[in-house]
């Protein structure tokens, strides 16, 4: 029983998230439940506006649910202080944002370095690991480039390299194939497939692309939100 519990990386129970906008309230998830085991590669699918990015933010502890609980690596997020949540993100969670989330005043390698510094993994091994990541993603010749000079596909790859640079237990990829041309998708999909086998840790990816969803070993589909008028 104890072993079963420790294998669950992310556990979501009775999740609700409500947003008020104007004269209506958007109710997301409506009691969503799921467990994600260690080593799973999960695709979270659903049409636009269903709350895929919100779910990623909730799992990363960047946002709070209206109702329900989220446990990541055995820790219930609502019980953690702000500092504990920050430490959890730094040590155990890697995030690729929909908009890449690269710091434009730093070059690609510095973006990786600063993330490693935040998680306390900026030693010699970290330096070697960041070089390996840049090579794996074919960015070693762009290490000194500003993120603003990269193509969308390259920026996505740099974002994934940055997310992986701290060796996180959970990797959150928000729309890794979003806004990419078909050629770039063709380049990125084998990399994501490779990640599943090489990295071996839990990967949670949101996607609208059926081809991308197929490389995951599990799919969680999010239903459309309920929109309730406010009197």
């Amino acid at each position, binding site marked *: 029983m104890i072993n079963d519990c420790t294998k669950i990386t992310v556990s979501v129970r009775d999740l609700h998230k409500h947003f008020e906008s104007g004269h209506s309230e958007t109710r997301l998830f409506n009691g969503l439940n799921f467990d994600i085991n260690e080593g799973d590669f999960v695709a979270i699918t659903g049409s636009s506006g269903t709350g895929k990015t919100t779910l990623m933010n909730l799992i990363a502890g960047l946002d709070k649910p209206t109702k329900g609980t989220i446990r990541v690596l055995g820790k219930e997020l609502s019980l953690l202080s702000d500092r504990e949540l*920050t430490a959890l993100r*730094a040590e155990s969670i890697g*995030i690729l*944002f929909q908009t890449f989330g690269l710091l434009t005043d730093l070059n690609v390698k510095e973006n990786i*370095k600063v993330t490693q510094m*935040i998680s306390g993994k900026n030693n010699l091994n970290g330096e070697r690991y960041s070089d390996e990541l840049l090579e794996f993603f074919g960015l070693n010749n762009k290490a000194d480039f500003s993120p603003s000079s990269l193509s969308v596909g390259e920026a996505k790859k740099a974002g994934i390299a940055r997310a992986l640079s701290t060796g996180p237990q959970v990797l959150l990829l928000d729309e890794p194939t979003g806004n990419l041309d078909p050629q770039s998708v063709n380049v990125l999909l084998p990399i994501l497939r490779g990640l599943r086998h090489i990295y071996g840790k839990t990967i949670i990816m949101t996607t609208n692309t059926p081809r991308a969803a197929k490389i995951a070993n599990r799919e969680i589909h999010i239903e459309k939100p309920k929109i309730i008028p406010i009197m």
Partner: protein
Amino acid sequence: MASYALLLKLFSKPEYRTFLSVVMISVLTIILWFVIANEIGHYVRSIMMVTIFVAISALVLNEIVASFANRKRDIAILIAVGIWKHLIGGILLLKTIVYTSIGWTLGMIMAYLLGWLGGISNSIALQQIALFSVVLVLGPAMVAGISCLLHTSRFNVPEVLRQ
């Protein structure tokens, strides 16, 4: 250490607004010097000193609020990847204190030189200014510190990243 330098590189870059703030703080310090050095009425002096203090505090506050506004995307990314948000607040506060001190120091040097050229007794002003300077730097720093705390506490990462 080199990686902390990256954070400083990111947040300490001076902007045009910062340069103007430094110049304004220098000018206000020069005015303060002459308010203290010259024989003027007690009430007028007090009012002018309070006015200068409020003006410098407003400049410092403006600097820190603008730093947050201009860097909010970078701040959101850094918080999301695991930096403690109050550390960023601390860096921005440190930056503001450094630039305030630079403005104040430049103002002191220029006021001293102007006083020396104009034959005004600098020794009395120097002692009084040294005393008042503690209030002049620490006061606005406290205002900036409280502002930093409020900004970092209320920082909404998902909302900033959504924009």
